[in-house]
Structures are given as structure tokens and as C-alpha cells.
């Protein structure tokens, strides 16, 4: 093969299949946000057009030495002789079979080792193994004076020890009327900043002399004008709505129940925003999301797939 030939084979004819392939990819990406069926259609389009593209490319780049053997001999053979020669040319030879078999077997053995190991490394994060959020008993509700916030620190998961120490800002809103029934109402704001996860602090005086403890739980009254984050300056009002800085939603909250007169913390959840205050607040509640992740608005489309196990 000389250099001139090398040059001409490089300039292959342009194929239109890449356009179909890119449309398939685009549909796949849109489908990722919009719906699963659209995603499957996009994937199918991408695969079909991708294969057509590869077939096209492999034709234009076909190696020169694949020319029939009789051309190399030099004389013009009869069709019958060409056919006879063709019979002797092997399509799938022994060495080709052995090559593929070796590579294939090697691949299978490799996959048998790598796939379980990778699964072991990655999957436990998504099966909820580390999630366990046992309900935490915060003590009698009489420890929470009506109308003031209490800085509440507790161990989120006794098995994990001090690493699971969490802080929530809890306000007893007194009694709320729900469907004509009187129910106790609490505002329980989780201290994790929804910008990047630093602990937010109450902006206001604390009253350590009025602090109470109950088992592992410590309760310190505070009068915050709002909450602020030391890391990047996020600021929130007393309902956890963002007032300034980089946070993308309102502060997360905890669900609660009251068992035998004790306040018991449930799962924590994410909040789009809060309208109203205290017992009358309307909270737009979402499945718990990472800080920095939008749960409402157009930007939520950036995070279309919920993370399993979170």
C-alpha cells in the first residue's frame, strides 16, 4: 500500500447515518427527563442508526487486500473458476475461531471477576444498607416551651455513634386545628444547609441556663431572627425559607409523632418552600434530596431520576 492510496482511503464518502444517530441520542436524553418509553425509543434509534453508521464506515474503509484472489493471479478467470476458487476461500477459519474463542473466554472470565466486585463496591450504597433512620425519642413535649425555638442535638443512629450526631431547631407551635380536631403542632427544621450541607446556626441569643437534657438529647432555648450558614453565607428565615445567599430551596424538615407524651422524630424530608408560619404553614414536601439539588421549578428536570436507597 503506497502513500497516495493511503491518502485517498482517508477521505471517506460522507454518511447521513450520524444524523439519525444524534437524533436518537437527543431523544434518549429528552426521554431521560420526560418519560421512560421515549428513552427506550431514543436508545433504539441510536442503536439502529449507530449500527448502520458502523456498517457504512466499514464498507468505505474496507482493506484493499480483501480483493478476490484471482485478481492477484492476473488473468481473467471464467465465472465457473471464480466460483470454484470462492469455495476454497474460508470465511470462518480455525485461527479466527481460536482468536475469538480466546478473547471471548478471557472476557467472560474477566467479567465474572470484575462484575461481582464492582457490584459489591457500588450497590450497597443504593440498597439502603447504610440508611437506617430509627425514630429518635426527644423526650416529653413539655420540655419544648410554646413559641420559642429549641436547639436540639441528638444521636441519629446509636449504632454509628457520634458521627451520627445531628441538630434540629424545634419550635412548639401549640395546638393546630386539623379537620376540626385539635392536634399539637411542631416546626422541626434540620440544621443541614441546603446549599452544600454545612450546619446552619441560629442568629440570635441562646439561653444555656434554661437548657434541659433528656438521655442523649440536649435542648437549649434560642431566639433566632433566622438561620445562617457559616460556610458560604446562606441565610434563612425562621420557617427555613431562603432569604439570601446560594441555597436552592428551603431547609429540610423532620416528620414527627407523639408517643406517650414524648416527641418522636421520624424521617426527614426536603421542602420546596413554606407559605405562612407556625401551625398555619403550608409546606411543599418532597422526597429527601441532596443539598444543592433543586426539588421544584424548572431546575428539578436536571435531577430526573430519584436515587434509590436515599
Amino acid at each position, binding site marked *: 500500500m503506497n502513500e497516495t492510496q493511503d491518502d485517498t482511503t482517508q477521505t471517506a464518502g460522507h454518511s447521513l447515518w450520524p444524523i439519525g444517530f444524534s437524533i436518537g441520542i437527543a431523544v434518549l436524553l429528552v426521554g431521560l427527563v420526560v418519560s421512560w418509553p421515549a428513552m427506550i425509543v431514543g436508545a433504539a434509534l441510536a442503536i439502529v442508526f449507530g449500527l448502520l453508521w458502523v456498517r457504512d464506515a466499514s464498507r468505505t474503509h474496507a482493506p484493499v487486500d480483501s480483493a478476490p484472489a484471482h485478481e492477484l493471479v492476473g488473468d481473467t478467470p471464467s465465472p465457473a473458476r471464480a466460483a470454484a476458487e470462492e469455495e476454497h476461500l474460508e470465511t470462518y477459519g480455525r485461527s479466527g475461531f481460536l482468536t475469538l474463542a480466546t478473547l471471548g473466554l478471557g472476557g467472560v472470565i474477566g467479567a465474572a471477576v470484575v462484575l461481582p466486585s464492582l457490584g459489591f463496591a457500588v450497590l450497597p450504597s443504593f440498597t439502603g444498607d447504610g440508611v437506617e433512620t430509627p425514630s429518635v425519642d426527644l423526650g416529653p413535649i413539655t420540655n419544648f416551651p410554646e413559641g420559642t425555638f429549641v436547639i436540639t442535638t441528638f444521636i441519629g443512629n446509636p449504632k454509628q455513634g457520634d458521627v451520627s450526631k445531628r441538630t434540629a431547631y424545634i419550635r412548639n407551635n401549640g395546638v393546630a386545628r386539623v379537620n376540626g380536631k385539635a392536634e399539637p403542632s411542631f416546626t422541626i427544621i434540620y440544621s443541614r444547609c441546603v446549599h452544600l450541607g454545612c450546619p446552619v446556626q441560629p442568629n440570635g441569643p441562646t439561653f444555656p441556663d434554661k437548657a434541659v437534657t433528656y438521655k442523649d438529647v440536649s435542648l437549649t432555648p434560642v431566639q433566632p431572627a433566622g438561620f445562617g450558614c457559616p460556610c458560604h453565607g446562606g441565610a434563612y428565615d425562621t420557617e427555613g425559607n431562603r432569604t439570601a445567599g446560594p441555597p436552592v430551596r428551603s431547609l429540610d424538615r423532620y416528620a414527627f409523632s407523639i408517643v406517650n407524651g414524648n416527641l418522636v422524630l421520624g424521617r426527614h424530608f426536603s421542602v420546596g418552600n413554606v407559605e405562612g408560619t407556625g401551625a398555619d404553614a403550608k409546606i411543599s414536601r418532597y422526597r429527601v434530596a441532596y443539598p444543592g439539588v433543586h426539588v421544584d421549578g424548572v431546575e428539578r428536570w436536571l*435531577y430526573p431520576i430519584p436515587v434509590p436507597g436515599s
Partner: protein
Amino acid sequence: MAKSTRRTQLDNAVLTPLDWFEERTGLVGGVKYLLFRNVPRDTNWMQTLGAATLTAFLVQATTGVFLAMYYKPDPNSAYESIQNITNHVTLGWLVRGMHKWGASLFIILMFLHMARTFLFGAYKYPRELNWIIGVLLLVTGMAEGFTGYLLPWDQTAYWATVVGININATAPIAGPFIAQFLQGGSQIGPDVLAKFYSLHMLVIPGAIMAMIVLHMYLVIRLGVTSPPWSPVAAGRKRDVEAPAGFGEYREGLIREHAEEREHAGEEA
């Protein structure tokens, strides 16, 4: 030139074992090939930044392996074990210091090396793949920095990791999955320390070493670029006739040898 008997004896004393080794491994020839291969005559001190980066990595690898003898990746003892290394283990302050400061040096050198490659145009044909491997090395190198930062298990380490993981989570679509993998649950717990330790000392360094081998193989195969201000034209002249106004077609970026160059000068 004739050698004295003493010199011949000396040569034999060195060469005999080398020859024995070479006959059985062929490695001496390989090392000679590495050391005596052609490089452009107008290479620049800036071109030693890659080797400097490699040295910084080797410092990290060496000190890291030995730090692992005294470090305990457990939330209850990680901080104490670091204090113990720094204050009590003989030369611990030095080795930990080398690892801590060397980490920053490694990252800085990677960026300088990358800048040199960019400014010299050394990422162009036929070296595009080596640029791509270099970018992957930069990413894995920074992942080393991120995972290593947690290991002292103090307040800075913990909250920097919280913020780092949550920055990962903000990436569209895949972000929350990356964060979920890194923190192994909905909260950062004790498993994260062991996971980061494993990533920091086994998984990522393994990947980095494999990529360094590829990176250097390509450097040796493709040769060293001369600086952009070099008066020597890049590449060998090709037989193909170029269209008018295009000068001449040249192959690769490897400079011609001096003799060929003089010859080409006569033609022009």
C-alpha cells in the same frame, strides 16, 4: 583507544554481571533505549515538568505506603493515629509532612505540566490521546486529593468532605448517584472513612499508575516535541505533492535529524 589492564579489569567487573542480566532479560537494552533515544536539540527546561510530576507522584506513593503502616481508618482511632504519627513515631513528622505538602506539589506540577503542553502545542497530532490520558490523570489526581483530605478525620476534614460530596451531588442527572456512592447512604457515616481510605490508597493509585505507564509509553513512542519557536520544521517531508500555497506535507511532529536538516536546507 587502548585501555590499561586495570581499566579492562574494571570494565569487566561491571559489565560481566550486566551482560549476564541482559542475556536473560533484555532489560539493559530497554533501559539504554530509554536513556539514549533522540530528542530535539532545542528542548527546554519547561519540558522537565512532566518528570517532576512523576517524581512528586513517586514521593506520594512511597510515603503513602509507609504511612499506611501506622494509620488506622476507623472513626474512633483515625485522629489519634495521625497525632501519633506526627508526634511520636520516629521520623513520622517528616514522612507525613512529605505526604501532606507533596500532595499540593503534585497537583501544582500537574497544572504547570499541562500549561507547558498546551503552550507548546504538544497536544496536537499525533499526541491527542496522550493529552486525553493526561486529563484523566489530572482528574484522578484531584480525586486523590479529595479522598485523602478526609483521612485526618478532624473538623476541617469532615466538613470539607461533606461540602465536596454535596458539590458532586449538584451535577445534573448523575450527581446524586455519585454522592450516594461516595457517602454510602443518606448521611456521612463511619463507612465513608474506610471507603475513602480504600479509594485513596488502592483503587485510584492503581488507576493512576496504569495511566502513567500508558502516558510514558506514548511519550517514548511519539518522541519529544521541540518548542514552538524552534527553527526546525516539524516532521519528515512526505512524497505527496501539496496544493499550491500549502508549503509541503510533513509527517508527524518528530524533528528531522541534523544531517537531514542540513540537506533540506540546501534544497530550499
